[in-house]
């Protein structure tokens, strides 16, 4: 053993070790092709180091020539992988330069095997001993082959290519990378090329030590790659930390987290999330398993929300009931969004779920209370109006009795002709229907039941209320004017409750004009479109106006009526607020008050 052998063997083994490490990296992450190219470069460097040793220990000129010839193979590999590495890793460099350089290099490899003994020599005339690192090694004397200019041209192109790539990386802002990868490649390729050129052209007589320069390049690039590994490790630490923090937060907030790989139909879910839906820890979850837990009535709405999120690649937000295996019912609120990962088909939906049962129960209880109070107040107001409602019902009854009596009298007198009787019967039928409608309306208002929201035309509500208050208005000597907007869009509402609100406002308007002279008593009910999203219904009176600041009239137990309980407006407001609307009052500039409510229009195309 001597120093040369030790150093070159070390270069080779260091390069091979690095190559092995990066091959393994590539093996586990096939997308890490830069690591594969790096491994190829390191291996080629190791092989070339072997070739150099072979040259230094050559016994004959022929053996030396063979060693030089075979040395071109690892050089080609190294060359091509270096170009590939720059393109892949630095994501820079002009491709025409890359292709030209690789083409020339390939040409020179072919020529290397065409010429004898190789690309660099026409003939090796003699070997001579020189002293190198205190050792005796051989170098060759010979006639240089001018074709080796092609190889050297390819190296020049390589340097230009790398320098150009490094400049664009520098301009991109990755200055350290430009220097360590680009700079080291340029420097050591130039150094290695200059040395071999001097040797092959017979200007200096030293052994070829290009592998040392190549190893420097490998080391620089290896360092760069290892930085990536460190970065990845740091990121994964950070990720683990933040994941832990998130888990803690999620646990504390009772959040279940989940990811659904839509294409592969796999669901990952945290322990909490599984517990929420009643799944065991280790069962495999997919979409159909989740759906099986959802209450059948809520499945369609949930599927719609998922479809919407995937189609718009946007937010997912829904609430649904879950039937647990033990038969209990649980309300789940889920929020998330749809993302694309990797290839365009990799759609994932990720988000959180939370148990909203308690909230839902509270909401239901609130609604029930509101419904009960609203019902009581409805019954009360209908009770107050019982007299005028009876009158309203009396009219068709009177007409029926009169017409039927008329018919009987015609018959008794023998003057009953069929057309006359038919017209009497027709009137009886239509008045009977009218009476039935009045009763249906009253029954609707007295009915105690869950609210039913459906598309409602507020003009119909106005029509219904006019039917209730017409007689009342007559008795109070109050003119009643309806100004409905015929183009009014629909709102989503409980008809009876909105009718109740309007009834309340109209009766209040009557009350406000109790002290006014009959000729000035007038109530105007008007419907109109407030904006593209809101409809307004207003009740205007010509009474004394609001006696206090507007706010107080909505307070419970505050009443300006002598025998009022003060519940009416408070209930009206709570009904309107529950319909996502707004109830407000103001004094009109020319006397009297105007109370109005706004309700949201049903969004177009949101019918499902």
């Amino acid at each position: 053993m001597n120093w040369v052998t030790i150093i070159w063997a070390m270069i080779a083994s260091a390069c091979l070790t690095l190559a092995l490490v990066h091959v393994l990296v590539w093996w586990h992450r096939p997308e890490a092709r830069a690591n594969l190219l790096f491994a190829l470069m390191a291996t080629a460097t190791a092989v070339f180091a072997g070739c150099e040793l072979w040259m230094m220990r050559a016994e004959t000129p022929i053996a030396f020539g063979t060693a030089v010839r075979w040395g071109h193979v690892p050089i080609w590999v190294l060359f091509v992988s270096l170009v590939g590495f720059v393109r892949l890793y630095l994501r820079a460099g002009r491709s025409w330069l890359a292709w030209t350089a690789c083409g020339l290099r390939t040409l020179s490899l072919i020529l290397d095997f065409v010429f004898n003994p190789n690309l660099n020599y026409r003939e090796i005339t003699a070997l001579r001993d020189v002293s190198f690192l205190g050792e005796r090694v051989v170098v060759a004397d010979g006639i240089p082959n001018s074709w080796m200019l092609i190889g050297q041209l390819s190296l020049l192109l390589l340097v230009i290519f790398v320098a150009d790539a490094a400049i664009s990386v520098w301009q991109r802002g990755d200055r350290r990378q430009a220097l360590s990868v680009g700079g080291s490649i340029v420097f050591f390729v130039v150094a290695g090329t200059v040395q071999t050129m001097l040797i092959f052209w017979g200007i200096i007589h030293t052994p070829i030590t290009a592998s040392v320069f190549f190893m420097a390049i490998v080391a620089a690039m290896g360092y760069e790659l290892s930085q990536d590994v460190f970065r990845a490790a740091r990121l994964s630490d950070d990720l683990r930390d933040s994941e832990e923090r998130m888990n803690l937060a999620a646990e504390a907030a009772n959040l279940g987290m989940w990811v659904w790989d839509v294409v592969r139909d796999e669901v990952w879910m945290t322990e909490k999330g599984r517990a929420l839906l009643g799944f065991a820890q280790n069962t495999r979850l997919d979409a159909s398993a989740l759906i099986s837990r959802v209450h059948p009535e809520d499945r369609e709405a949930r599927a719609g929300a998922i479809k919407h999120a995937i189609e718009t690649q946007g937010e997912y937000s829904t609430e649904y009931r879950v039937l647990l295996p033990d038969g209990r019912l649980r309300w789940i609120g889920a929020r998330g969004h749809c993302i694309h990962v990797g290839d365009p088909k990799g759609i994932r939906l990720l988000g959180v779920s939370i148990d909203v049962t308690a909230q839902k129960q509270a909401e239901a209880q609130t609604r029930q209370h509101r419904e009960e109070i609203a019902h009581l107040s409805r019954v009360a107001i209908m009770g107050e109006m019982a007299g005028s409602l009876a009158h309203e019902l009396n009219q068709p009854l009177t007409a029926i009795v009169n017409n039927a009596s008329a018919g009987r009298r015609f018959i008794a007198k023998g003057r009953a002709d069929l057309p006359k009787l038919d017209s009497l019967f027709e009137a009886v039928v239509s008045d009977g229907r009218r009476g039935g409608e009045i009763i249906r309306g009253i029954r609707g208002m007295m009915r105690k039941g869950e609210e039913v929201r459906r598309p409602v035309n507020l003009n119909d509500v106005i029509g219904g209320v006019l039917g209730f208050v017409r007689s009342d208005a007559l008795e109070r000597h109050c003119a009643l004017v309806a100004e409905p907007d015929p183009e009014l869009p629909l709102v989503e509402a409980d008809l009876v409750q909105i009718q109740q609100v309007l009834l309340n406002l109209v009766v209040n308007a009557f009350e406000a004009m109790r002290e006014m002279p009959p000729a000035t008593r007038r109530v105007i009910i008007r419907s109109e479109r407030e904006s593209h999203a809101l409809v307004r219904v207003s009740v205007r009176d010509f009474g004394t106006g609001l006696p206090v600041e507007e706010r107080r009239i909505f307070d419970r137990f505050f009443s300006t009526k002598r025998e009022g309980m003060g519940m009416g407006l408070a209930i009206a407001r709570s009904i309107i607020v529950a319909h996502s609307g707004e109830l407000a009052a103001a004094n009109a500039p020319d006397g009297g008050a105007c109370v109005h409510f706004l309700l949201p229009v049903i969004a177009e195309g949101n019918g499902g």
Partner: protein
Amino acid sequence: MEDEENRGSQRESSSAMKELEPRIFVVDDDQSVRTSLANLFATEDYAVEIFASADEYLARLPPPGPSCLVLDVQLPGLDGLALQRQLTEEGKVEQIVFITGHGDIPMGIRAMKRGAVDFLPKPFRDDELLSAVALALARSAENLRQRGEVVESRARLAKLTPREFEVFRLIIAGLLNKEIGAELEVSLRTIKTHRGRVMQKIGVVSVAELVRLAQKAGVAPASHGTK
């Protein structure tokens, strides 16, 4: 039975006023009630006019013959009771049958005190309404007849000279000729002449007839001294 009698009387009065047929006015704001009332009255061949409000009714032509007003209490604008009051204030005598869907006893009493014929809560029996209407028409006819007699008797009295009218008032006061002469300080003969003219001009033969005419014409007997 009462019904039969009423109908009888109605026929009687209509025959008495042959040339002027009775007419019923209906005022109700509810269209189906209005037309049903018209149907009911058609069974008795009454002439009917219907109105939706008091104002419409007031704009009608006044009827020449007997008439009656079937009036709803609850009306937009001027209501039934207010219309009754207004008619009374303007001195227009109208026989009114009130109908109401929402009436109470005080309201009924008030209406009756002001001279309403009847006050019927809706819905009512056909014969109730028809007999009330028949009564109202009978009263209206009677009024007309009375008003006609007054006109006629006053026309007869208008033929007298002031002196003769003075003698007329003393005769119906029950004074004898000589007492009248003493009262007027003229001879008995002169009084006899006046008396003969009065009887001749008025066209009666007895003092009793003179008294009846005076009553119809609304002429009070003369107050006289006790000489």
